[in-house]
């Protein structure tokens, strides 16, 4: 097996591991915040339903955390196993945020263990809420640090190259590359947004199944409000990300938008198919790309013609970009309609059809997460370290990557199925009505 083969297979295995891991990682970053908010609302409103919401979310969260931890360990080690040449080079420059990520993860792991096993141990629920702050903070910080590493790969800085060697290394400069603000903000906002919609999906599902307990209504209203806030934030940050790309990674933006020639007053292409260099069946919005790239309708946007043929990312990333943006816009719209309808008490929000749309919002958000990551990662091909190291130069020389793909694919299949089976079993055996009744009985017992 040649180096080209092992580079290709290494890309496949990395794609497989990361695509699987980010489902759990997104939940891992977003859900602690949702639990914290529910707990806080419960304490503030003195409403036990919200406390129970937090508790039930926390139970399911443990299962996803477990899979997130083990797949995260897998990708952490695979970076060195599959891309040894990259890690050898980058280890000199970017080890600091990787190292700090482990600390954040450590911090989160400790307090998550404490949080899960001290329910009702403290009389005061506010004390218990305090334990959630380090969990949510640790989760968010580990996403910050790992996104910093990824930002470095997109916009490397903090070193100089002298005779093929990296010199004058500045770890802090490498950490704060220009890609950091937009990337970190986008990753966090979308993680919160996706988690909110996923939890909303659960409530919608219960309501579709015929339960009209007020608990589910409270859950749905809370999560949809949060979903609205974070999807609006995501859209704003997405706009900044476009401006970042135009400035620092124009080839990625041009490939995403099938923008071949450098021109002013550039139009934005929505959907469509590519036939050679002709774009068919697309919706074209005049000036929009110039606005997305630089904020004014007459500004110049760099086209693909300016780059050498072998440094252009594959053009199919356009479809990924469209998928991500369309879903994002749809979810912002859907949550806005729901929140207004619930507030105004419009009856269509209680129809089956509308609840189906709400049920789909969580899975759709996950699809957008996957599409967004594939877009950003494939969009920097052929580089692993943009401008410095190509992906093919970084891969392992080992000939057994193909077998490892089969091994890990099997593992992820088992973990995926296991998660679904365990989670459904857990909630089906103990629906909220049953748990509420048991709590009532407990309280009655206390009074006697």
């Amino acid at each position: 097996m040649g180096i080209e083969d092992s580079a290709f297979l290494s890309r496949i295995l990395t794609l497989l591991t990361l695509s699987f891991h980010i489902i759990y990682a997104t939940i891992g970053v977003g859900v602690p915040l949702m639990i914290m908010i529910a707990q806080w609302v419960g304490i503030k409103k003195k409403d036990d339903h919200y406390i129970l919401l937090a508790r039930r979310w926390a139970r399911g969260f443990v299962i996803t955390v477990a899979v997130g931890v083990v797949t995260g360990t897998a990708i952490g080690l695979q970076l060195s196993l599959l891309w040894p040449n990259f890690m050898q080079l980058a280890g000199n420059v970017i080890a600091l945020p990787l190292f700090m990520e482990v600390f954040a993860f450590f911090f989160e792991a400790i307090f998550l263990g404490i949080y899960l096993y001290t329910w009702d141990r403290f009389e005061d629920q506010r004390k218990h809420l305090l334990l959630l702050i380090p969990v949510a903070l640790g989760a968010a910080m580990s996403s910050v640090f790992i996104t910093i590493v990824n930002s470095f790969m997109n916009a490397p800085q903090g070193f100089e190259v002298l005779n093929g060697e990296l010199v004058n290394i500045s770890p802090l400069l490498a950490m704060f590359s220009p890609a950091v603000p937009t990337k970190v903000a986008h990753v966090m906002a979308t993680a919160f947004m996706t988690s909110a919609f996923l939890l909303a999906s659960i409530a919608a599902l219960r309501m579709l199944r015929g339960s009209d307990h007020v608990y589910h209504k409270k859950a749905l209203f809370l999560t949809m409000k949060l979903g609205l806030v974070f999807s609006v934030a995501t859209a704003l940050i997405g706009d900044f990300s476009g401006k970042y790309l135009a400035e620092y990674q124009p080839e990625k933006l041009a490939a995403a938008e099938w923008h071949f020639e450098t021109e002013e007053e550039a139009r934005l292409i929505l959907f469509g198919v590519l036939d050679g260099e002709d774009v068919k069946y697309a919706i074209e919005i005049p000036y929009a790309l110039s606005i997305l790239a630089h904020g004014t309708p007459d500004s110049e946007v760099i086209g693909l013609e300016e780059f050498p043929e072998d440094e252009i990312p594959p053009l199919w990333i356009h479809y990924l970009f469209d998928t991500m943006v369309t879903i994002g816009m749809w979810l912002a719209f859907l949550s806005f309609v729901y929140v207004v309808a619930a507030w105004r008490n419009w009856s269509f929000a209680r129809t089956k059809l509308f609840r189906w749309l709400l049920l789909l919002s969580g899975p759709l958000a996950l699809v957008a997460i996957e599409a967004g990551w594939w877009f950003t990662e494939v969009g920097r091909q052929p580089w692993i370290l943009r401008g410095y190291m190509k992906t093919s130069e970084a891969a392992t020389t080992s000939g057994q990557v193909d077998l490892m793909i089969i091994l890990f694919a099997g593992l992820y299949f088992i973990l995926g199925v296991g998660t679904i089976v365990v989670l459904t079993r857990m909630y089906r055996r103990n629906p909220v009505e049953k748990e509420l009744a048991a709590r009532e009985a407990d309280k009655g017992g206390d009074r006697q």
Partner: protein
Amino acid sequence: MTLEIIGISVLWLFLFLYVIVASIDFGAGFFNAYSAFTNKQHILTGIIQRYLSPVWEVTNVFFVFFFVGIIGFFPQTAFYYGTTLLVPASIALVLLAIRGSYYAFATYGAKINHRGYIYMYGLSGLLLPAALSPVLAMSEGGFIKLDDGSPYLDYWTLFTSPLMWSIVVLSLTAVLYISAVFLTWYANKAGDEKATDLMRKYALVWAGPAIITATGIIFELRGHNPEHYARILDLWWVFAISFLLFVGTVYLVWKRRNYGLAFILLVGQFFTAFFAYGASHYPHLLYPYLTIYDSFTNEAMAIALIVAFIAGLGLLLPSLYLLFRLFLFDKDYVKGKSDYHA
């Protein structure tokens, strides 16, 4: 003290902590399975779950810490070990993944009590140290070879090497011994006499094999890597201290006295042996290709990492203390009087 020495000491310390906490974890799974096999499961399961549930994730982090740290401080290890370890490390990863997720699925989630799963969980606890420990053999040289500048692992030499197998046997016996001593102490704290007696028996059974294989490896090294062997002999007195601590542990466990102290002596025994072994390995990370000097990261990064490390410890130590106080040293929790699981 140079930055290189600080770096490797930090990493070695974290590897040591992982060895201890992971041994407890792996061994606990095995003893749980074995007691299910001999119909004594009711004695041990409660004790084991109460200890493992809040801490298994933390155990995992020690491992991540080690491999992220070694790439950070010594990026060249990624080139040699990363390239050669693809298959063994992937297998270890899969085992680790199945183990961790199964534990969460079974104990937090579906409460599966099927015997097949319990045996698999126990067995994976033995396979993991067996999959991880050959790395120690590789670091002694002779197994990783170069082909046109790119390293590869010579599986035939590795699998026919008595050194590799001795290390595997040592890791297995050490896991069972460490775990048994810890669980004896933990069960005794819980006031559970039956579990204490059972674990005490296991501790005494595994003490002999653990010390015999450990001694055996030193003699294996005489033939395999004479340079390393000579440095081990220079440090004979540290190994002697380690042996005395071992005798102390066995004596206390035998006499059913002061299990807490017995466990501390055990940690001391492994600490001294582990660091003496590490010190005698100096300066090689991979004999003869890599020393800690030629693979070290640049100075700016090293300083940044050490600063981050100190700041991180400032955050971690109080948190770990809180964790231990709430679960390891809390009488009601240990005795299982109340279940506060979310």
